[in-house]
């Protein structure tokens, strides 16, 4: 039998690895970052790249909200507005949300399983740079979109780019081509990273780290990585078919030559719905780490949490056509997708209850990270419930493609995923930089953001119920939409202020923050046993674990977890 104690040697506090010391010239430092294959640096680059695009996409959203604040507004032309929502959607999904969650995966997974790096460090760098290139190609469309016409433009076909609006007959110039190639290229990067995460988790775990002892963070990210493999493939295939249609005389989606617009819709949502879970599972992952630590209790029902994660992974592959209730499927097909969509509420509900069970009976410490988690729980609950409403196909016939849907998925993405990401930032920032974020600025960030979020997205449901379709650049007065849209637009200001406070907090704390030490939260997973920031090699000695909470075992030798497993 194994010995009675896990072997985890906390790193001596000899600060950072030699190559990080601050006297190197800037060019040298830049070069280090560009050629790096270190999973931590790549994780940070993924994350920063995502945040950059989050800000860009946010500015696009602000233009739209300024335009829609009042009826009959002429602030921007319809063409500009259509480019704004296309770029906003594409940017936020592919170049903000995905890089951010990949950043967390990259940074945390090797540290949490006691590995020194990813299984394929160079593939990891390749994945990041492909994603970065994709974003650059997409944004180059602002100057190159019209090709030979000499003027720039951006894609204006909507982020799901329904055929045949993307055919050459309806989309002249090259803006759609930039959109296609941008996503194609970043998709290759995503697949590379997904393969890497899966391989790393399967092959690189430290001794004793059985699958049943994997931190939930790792479990959920691995399932998300599997979904990336399953989902990005169809998207890439569809993009290639669209390119063939546009330049090689193909007719896959060319309705005037017998092609099918509906096939594109299927391809897109076969990608598009798992994509939601690709983003939301890493958010669940963060919450599943933060809530136990700040409630001072282990996660409630680990096994059922893992089972629910796998269930979400499987079911999410079979729900795509709930985006298609209005395309005229048969009643049987509609009923099937009602069932599969409603079914996914069960494992998702289990997760919410288990997080609640974790808080129950704990001693909850309201650090900013935990505040974001509680906000996440409540907002994700609402997002799930409006999702249930939309899953009832007949109700969706009324709500689909209206502002109700826009409010619903922003509840999921902003109210759920982004809130969890903020929780993750407040939680791991001390590990990444060795400095604490400011709690008081963090509280400003939290409240400004939450107030702005609710002003915007609570009230956005209402114009949808009053018949306002999405993607309209203006509307007449007198249809009951004006006041609501004004409130929605005002909320954006609060959100922007919240983000601003956060950016200030991050930059200020990076230089002036209180030193964090190795383990500021008294946490239990392996990354907290090494230095902050961790050395390039992560662990001086590969740890050996005997339970799901190796640091708990270390801190409580009188009552270790492994006794109960």
């Amino acid at each position: 039998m194994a010995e009675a104690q896990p072997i985890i040697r906390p790193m001596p506090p000899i600060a950072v690895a030699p190559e990080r010391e601050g006297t190197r010239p800037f060019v040298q430092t830049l070069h280090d970052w560009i050629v790096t294959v270190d999973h931590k640096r790549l994780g940070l680059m993924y994350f920063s790249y995502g945040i950059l695009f989050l800000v860009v996409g946010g500015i696009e959203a602000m233009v739209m909200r300024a335009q829609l604040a009042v009826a009959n507004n002429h602030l921007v032309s319809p063409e500009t507005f259509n480019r704004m929502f296309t770029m906003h959607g594409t940017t936020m999904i592919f170049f903000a949300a995905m890089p951010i969650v990949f950043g967390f995966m990259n940074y945390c997974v090797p540290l949490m399983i006691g590995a020194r790096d990813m299984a394929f460090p160079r593939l990891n760098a390749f994945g990041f740079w492909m994603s970065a290139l994709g974003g650059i190609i997409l944004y180059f469309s602002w100057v190159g979109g019209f090709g030979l016409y000499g003027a720039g433009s951006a894609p204006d076909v909507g982020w799901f780019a329904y055929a045949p609006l993307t055919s050459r007959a309806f989309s002249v110039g090259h803006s759609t081509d930039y959109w296609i190639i941008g996503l194609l290229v970043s998709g290759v990067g995503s697949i590379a990273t997904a393969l890497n995460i899966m391989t790393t988790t399967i092959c690189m775990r430290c001794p004793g780290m059985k699958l049943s002892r994997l931190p939930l963070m790792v479990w959920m990210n691995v399932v998300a990585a599997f979904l990336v493999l399953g989902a990005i493939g169809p998207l890439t295939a569809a993009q290639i078919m669209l390119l063939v249609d546009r330049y090689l005389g193909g007719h896959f989606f060319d309705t005037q030559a017998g092609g099918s617009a509906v096939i594109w819709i299927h391809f897109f949502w076969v990608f598009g719905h798992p994509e939601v879970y690709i983003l939301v599972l890493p958010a669940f992952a963060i919450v599943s780490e933060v809530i136990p630590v700040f409630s001072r209790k282990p996660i409630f029902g680990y096994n059922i949490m893992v089972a629910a994660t796998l269930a979400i992974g499987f079911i999410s592959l079979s729900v795509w056509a709930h985006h298609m209730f209005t395309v005229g499927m048969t009643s049987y097909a509609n009923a099937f997708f009602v069932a599969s969509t409603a079914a996914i509420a069960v494992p998702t509900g289990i997760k919410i209850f288990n997080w609640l069970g974790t808080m129950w009976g704990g001693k909850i410490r309201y650090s900013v990270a935990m505040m974001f988690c509680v906000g996440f729980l409540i907002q994700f609950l609402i997002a799930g419930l409006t999702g249930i409403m939309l899953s009832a196909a007949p109700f969706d016939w009324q709500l689909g493609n209206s502002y109700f849907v826009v409010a619903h998925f922003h509840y999921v993405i902003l109210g759920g995923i982004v809130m969890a990401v903020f929780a993750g930032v407040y939680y791991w920032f001390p590990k990444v930089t060795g400095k604490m974020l400011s709690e008081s600025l963090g509280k400003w960030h939290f409240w400004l953001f939450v107030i702005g979020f609710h002003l915007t997205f609570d009230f956005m449901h209402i114009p949808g119920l009053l018949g306002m379709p999405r993607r309209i650049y203006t509307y007449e007065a007198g249809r009951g939409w004006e006041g609501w849209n004004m409130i929605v637009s005002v909320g954006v200001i609060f959100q922007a202020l919240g983000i601003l406070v956060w950016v200030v907090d991050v930059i200020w704390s990076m230089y002036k923050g209180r030193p964090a030490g190795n383990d500021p939260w008294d946490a239990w997973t392996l990354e907290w046993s090494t230095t902050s920031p961790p050395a390039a090699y992560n662990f001086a000695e590969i740890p050996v674990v005997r339970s799901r909470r190796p640091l708990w075992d270390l801190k409580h030798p009188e009552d270790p977890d492994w006794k109960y497993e």
Partner: protein
Amino acid sequence: MHSPVASSIRATPNGLQRCAQASLRCVALAASTLFGLPLRALSLDPAPATLFNPVSTPAHEIYHLSLFVISVCAAIFLVVFGLIAYAAVKYRRRPTDDDCEPPQIYGSNQVELAWTIIPILIVVVLFLASARVIHAVEDAELPSDALQVTAVGHQFWWEFRYPGYGFVTANELHVPVSVEGHARPTHIVLLSADTDHSFWVPRLAGKTDLIPNRRNETWIDPHEVGHYVGQCAQYCGVQHAKMLLNVFVDTPDDFQKWVAQQKAPAVASEQAATGRRVFENNACMNCHTIAGTDAKGTFGPDLTHLMSRSTIASGAAPNDEKNLRLWVEEPDAIKPGCLMPAMQLNEQDVSALVAYLMTLR
């Protein structure tokens, strides 16, 4: 846009409904302010184009389902939100707490089983309720004398064909009222000439897409005479925003009169002969049809009875002399990015043309 006709004919709600509405209003107001529950719209009276004020069977079916689903979701919300709020407050760390850790609980099979099985039961009930309505709306058998209409989506306007009567009109759909004892539902075939569109008039039915190279269908049986507004609900290009749908539900007599008028060829009046020549000698006739003349284009709306419509450019502007003139001279002033070209006619020709158009009653 709400028609006064519609509100005067609407049945007065009985006491119970009023009471229910009032209490819903209070709950909804508080809930929407605090948690964003979308119930607020229930309290609008008289409602604009909302699904909560249905006047046709498919919309009624959806309305009842929606109340059920919203109630279930609201109940779940209250319970789970209550539990989260309770746990978040009750189990917070207090200044008086000692440093020791709380009891370490790893899970409980009974509790976990309970919160797996209860959601499954709720999901089954919701599925059955949805499936019933899907079947009732999608698989409904319409009587053989149902009015047949074919709606064709264009960038950025609606073409309405009445194959039973042999005429074509645009942007304003007229259908007969369908009342007890005199049921006359309308069966609408949905086609598209270019990109995807979606037919959505919330008070009449849920939306159904118009997809090129595909035949979709929907049906309505409005119970109340009136004017119902909707609009294209699938992004279709630059002017997706100005693709309004105006549906006029007429009494059977009015509908027959309207049909008779639409079937007649265009009025040929002598005083507008100049304008007619302008129309026929320019590119107008390539895109527009005026029955009884040489103009047989189908790219743009049929103008045979242009003046019988209350708006032009698919609801973008009222149909009057000033707007017609502007529309001919500079379509982008009304609907930037629309496919109607500015014809660059001289002042005289524009006046003659508009005078001619004004005779197309």
